[in-house]
């Protein structure tokens, strides 16, 4: 007899699709395109993870420069959706202008909205974030706000028109994992129907699996894959962990107990007599 093994590496794992602003995605990994050893390795990592949505940015172009054109060709050849970001913006106005430039350049109304408050933590400026989200949503953007686990800010972002929230796991680029697990669980419970994507701070496949087991809808990764010894193999490792975590969440995880409970049936245990007085 051969036991059937679950397939966690195939393209059709049988999990529910992810829907972001009406677009259905099979992969629950969003992948950054920065910090890879080479463009080819980035391309191969996206393919290895079967990723369908990648983040991109805008930067100043040199006079007579062709850097942007080359990158645009590379991204077009990937054949995946892009999510432009406003990385590095410090004010709502900077983020709004950057979003408008990104919409024209990438012909895409999705925007990963970042308004950064602090250089050491790169934490979101929640006040500027809400202000920019309101203006961009009214201007027709589909806003993906990079936020914290703060429920008050999250409520205002949803009220502004955000149909997706992207709370941090830990500060960008730190690889610390889910630093505030309890608050993230509260956020999941508070917004049962809003897609929640863990953005930033994920360092290991186990962190990604943990986020998925908590019921988060997807994770956004970059540094943990791009700076790995073998980014392509690491992309596959994360893809497997994300599918495993999602499968576990959809399957219904057990509730931890304080006291041991034997898994093997007690009834019929040899040498064990309930009536010890005999």
């Amino acid at each position, binding site marked *: 007899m051969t036991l059937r093994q679950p397939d966690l590496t195939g393209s059709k794992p049988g999990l529910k699709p992810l829907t972001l602003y009406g677009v259905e995605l099979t992969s629950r990994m969003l992948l950054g*395109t920065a910090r890879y050893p080479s463009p080819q390795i980035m391309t191969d990592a996206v393919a290895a993870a079967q990723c369908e949505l990648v*983040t991109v*940015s805008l930067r100043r*172009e040199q006079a007579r420069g062709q850097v942007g*054109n080359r990158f*645009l060709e590379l991204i077009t050849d990937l054949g995946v959706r892009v999510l432009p970001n406003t*990385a590095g913006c410090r004010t709502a106005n900077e983020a709004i202008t950057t979003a*408008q*430039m990104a919409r024209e350049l990438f012909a895409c109304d999705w925007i990963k909205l970042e308004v950064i408050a602090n250089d050491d933590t790169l934490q979101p400026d929640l006040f500027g974030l809400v202000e920019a989200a309101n203006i961009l949503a009214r201007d027709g953007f589909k806003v993906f706000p990079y936020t914290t686990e703060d429920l008050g800010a999250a409520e205002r972002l949803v009220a502004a028109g955000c149909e997706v929230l992207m709370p941090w796991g830990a500060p960008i680029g730190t690889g610390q994992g889910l630093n505030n697990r309890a608050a993230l669980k509260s956020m999941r419970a508070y917004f049962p129907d809003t897609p929640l994507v863990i953005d930033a701070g994920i360092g290991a496949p186990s962190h990604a699996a943990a986020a998925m087991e908590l019921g988060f809808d997807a994770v956004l990764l970059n540094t943990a894959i791009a700076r790995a010894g073998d980014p392509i193999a690491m992309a596959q490792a994360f893809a497997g962990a994300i599918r495993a975590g999602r499968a576990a969440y959809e399957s219904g995880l057990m509730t931890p107990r304080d006291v041991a409970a034997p898994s093997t049936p007690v009834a019929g245990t040899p040498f064990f007599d309930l009536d010890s007085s005999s």
Partner: protein
Amino acid sequence: MGQRTQQVFKIVINGMVTETNAHTLQALLDEHGYGGTRVATARNGTFVPSRVREETTLKPGDSIEVVSARQGG
């Protein structure tokens, strides 16, 4: 392409002070060789769509951003 004034004046392109006599944003992009690159632009912090670059006139001291696609996280 764009009209030109007689006077050379100073503006800031991507943070660098530059002298130009380009009268419009489109003329400035042409003057600096951005013609073959897909770029997006802003003037004094405000987005300027590509369709209105021809009619966007420049003034001394204007700050222009010229950006293109890049890797991002």
